């Protein structure tokens, strides 16, 4: 009993214990709303050991422990009893102060459970788990989902992306000089034989002054002719092809699409309504996607080296051609490195040479004659200007 009545002391107006020492009585006027109609009932409010409210046909007698106050702008005050629709409004400041001192549960929220801290901690835990799902869960899920995409669906998708990419590159003409094409087809067939790729790769060479090669869904590989021009040996060219086949084997294009969709969805889910979140979502998605992409590039490099060795070439040739075609081969680590879709060329080259080991003497994937023929594959096509330097093999 004592503990219960001692609580009013907390509010500062100590010295009067409602049950033992008679408190100074306060009388004020107010308006009572009975919760049944909007009619205002003038009442007299008498605060003693209990709160007595009287008016025409009204007699309320409330225990000070049951009184709750609603949020209002001082000096207006609105009080009621927990769970009752009756409200009393008044603007008497002394009464308001006395109620604050004597009613221990005046500002208690009867429906409120759990504090803000709990909410904050749970939200942070939820946010972090979604973030972890975006960083680690989505690529795994994409890896599982990508092989499940039905062949016809992937084919249609590949066709559509092919069209978009080609028009994005400015419709570079397809190089198909017949003799060279047959050399290319034989090379591709030999390299992919027994490699267990998900489909037979379709390699097309297009005349373009950017040294780049792309893998699209449905095992479509587009090689831009400048790669061919910059390759000094057939092994270097085959190295690029083998790297792209590494992407085909891992179904990277389809995985990238699923990953990008999943990540941007999850990020906008947790950052949805925040001011300035568009920037954060954009950078976050780019960073996470680029992270996957760098991992995929390293895997494709390793795959390419192994494939090239199987086909009778020198894996290290891939490192040589990468260094040659990449203008920023000597770039130092920079603060925006986390946004790069490809690892630094220097690091890649070191890794590739490590994997390739000793150079096999006197072996090449193509004979010198075939190599000459292949280099002429775009002979019949006019040149296209160079502009797009954003993508690298």
């Amino acid at each position: 009993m004592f503990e219960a009545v001692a609580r009013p002391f907390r509010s500062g107006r100590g010295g009067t214990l409602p049950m033992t020492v008679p408190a100074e009585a306060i009388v004020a006027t107010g308006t009572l709303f009975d919760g049944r109609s909007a009619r205002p009932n003038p009442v007299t409010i008498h605060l003693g050991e209990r709160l007595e409210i009287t008016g025409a046909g009204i007699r309320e007698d409330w225990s000070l422990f049951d009184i709750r106050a609603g949020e209002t702008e001082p000096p207006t005050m609105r009080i009621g009893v927990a769970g009752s629709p009756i409200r009393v409004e008044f603007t008497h400041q002394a009464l308001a102060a006395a109620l604050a001192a004597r009613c221990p549960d005046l500002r208690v929220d009867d429906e409120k459970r759990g504090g803000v801290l709990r909410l904050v901690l749970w939200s942070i835990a939820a946010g972090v788990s979604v973030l972890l799902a975006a960083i680690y869960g989505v690529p795994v899920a994409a890896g599982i989902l990508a092989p499940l995409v039905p062949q016809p669906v992937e084919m249609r998708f590949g066709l559509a992306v092919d069209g978009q990419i080609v028009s994005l590159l400015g419709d570079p003409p397809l190089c198909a000089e017949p003799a060279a094409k047959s050399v290319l087809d034989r090379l591709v067939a030999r390299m992919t034989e027994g490699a267990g790729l998900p489909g037979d790769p379709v390699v097309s060479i297009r005349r373009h002054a950017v040294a780049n090669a792309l893998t699209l869904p449905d095992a479509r590989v587009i090689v831009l002719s400048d790669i061919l021009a910059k390759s000094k040996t057939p092994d270097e060219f085959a190295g690029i092809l083998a790297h792209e086949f590494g992407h085909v084997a891992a179904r990277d294009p389809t995985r990238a699409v699923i990953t990008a969709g999943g990540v941007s969805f999850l990020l906008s889910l947790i950052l949805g309504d925040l001011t300035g979140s568009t920037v954060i979502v954009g950078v976050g998605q780019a960073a996470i996607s680029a992270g996957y992409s760098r991992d995929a590039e390293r895997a494709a490099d390793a795959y390419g080296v192994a494939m090239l060795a199987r086909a009778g070439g020198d894996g290290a040739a891939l490192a040589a051609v990468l260094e040659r075609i990449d203008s920023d081969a000597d770039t130092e680590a920079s603060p925006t490195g986390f946004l790069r879709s490809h690892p630094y060329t220097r690091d890649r080259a070191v890794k590739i040479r490590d994997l390739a080991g000793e150079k096999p003497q006197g072996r090449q994937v193509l004979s010198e004659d075939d190599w000459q023929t292949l280099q002429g594959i775009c002979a019949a096509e006019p040149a296209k200007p160079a502009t797009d330097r954003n993508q690298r093999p």
Partner: protein
Amino acid sequence: MNAVGAVPARPGTVVFDRQAKGLTGIAVKGFLLSLATFGIYRFWYITNLRRYFWSRTIVAGSPGEYTGRGKELFLGFLVALAILVPIYIVLFALGFAYPPLAPVAGPITFVFLFLLGQYAIFRGRRYRASRTFWRGIRLGQDGSALAYVGLATGWWLLTLVTLGIAFPWMRASLERYRINHTLVGESRMTSTARGGMILKPWLLFYLVALGPLFASILALLVANDFSIPADLMIADPGKPGKFVFNPDYAGTPLAIYGGVVAIVAAIFIPLALFLIPYYRARETRAFMNAAALGTACLHSTLKARQFYWPYIVYMLSILGYLAAIGIVLGGSAYLIQTSGLGTGAQALLVVGMVVAYLGSLLLFAVLYVRVITVRLWRAVTDTTTIENVQALDAVLASSRRTASGLNEGLADALDVGGALEIGF
């Protein structure tokens, strides 16, 4: 009435707190906690804001009361996610599986979200009404959200077909539906809003802002016999993937009128933005004057300039702040560059920029609530009076069930319906 209580407001007036004390604290806490909780706290923040605004709005001597809970909104948001996530996934998968479908996936999503958004607007209003008390009487809303969606869709189609002429009638029709299904206790509100009431402000907006644009587009179409050549835009020879204007058409009526459209758009679209507060003020006043509860009716004397001041003050504060920040950051960047202090100072500058960015967002958020929300709210409340206020005494409580917060969560997930809507 109120013969006894020393109530600050005269009977029949609607007033809002003069000083808005404690609001800054709510806004700062709301913003920072929303940031820390990945935005989840926003439901509690909105609830705090509403409780504040409701309780500081004194209608005929009695402050309003908001009894909604952040938890209800949050649960509603989770349910809305459970509905929306599969839909998003299906749309994504469709675009992926049938690439020809990808271009129409956008419009399909838009139409679908429009319908869902109208539904959420109506049901969100129902939730807010059922959490609002005045003099111990609970407000409410009946009517069918599906009917509202149908009404809104029909009117929007008509508005599009008539190039916007039907807009005022659409607004009035939807306002009537909303108000006529709003209940205070057992009493039903009524609205006599008609399109003709807001035809004048709309026509002004239309003629000044949209008229020249439509006229110039029409002139363009007439001059070209309503046909745009297919090779108007050709692939840029310099930039793959980009399209440029075909030089063959230079000097033709097509190019001249196209230039006219561009110039007209550059002048009149910003002008249209300037006229929006004017239109909104006029519409709010007309619709307030048309609303009644029994024989008690609202009377508004809202002036358009009262809707301009908040925006002007807000814009000027932001411009001043940005100028100051720009000088500070630019100055320190210059100092670092000239003194060659190296990476340590550069890192400091980056940290400073991040802090300045977050600080600016906080400042803008607080300023928005304090300047725009408060002033717009006060502009509406303080210009509103209730005629025949004694009739309100006859309002009786109702035993209606309270609406669930689920549908307002949908409104949040779709980002329709602000936390605090000005007017009804």
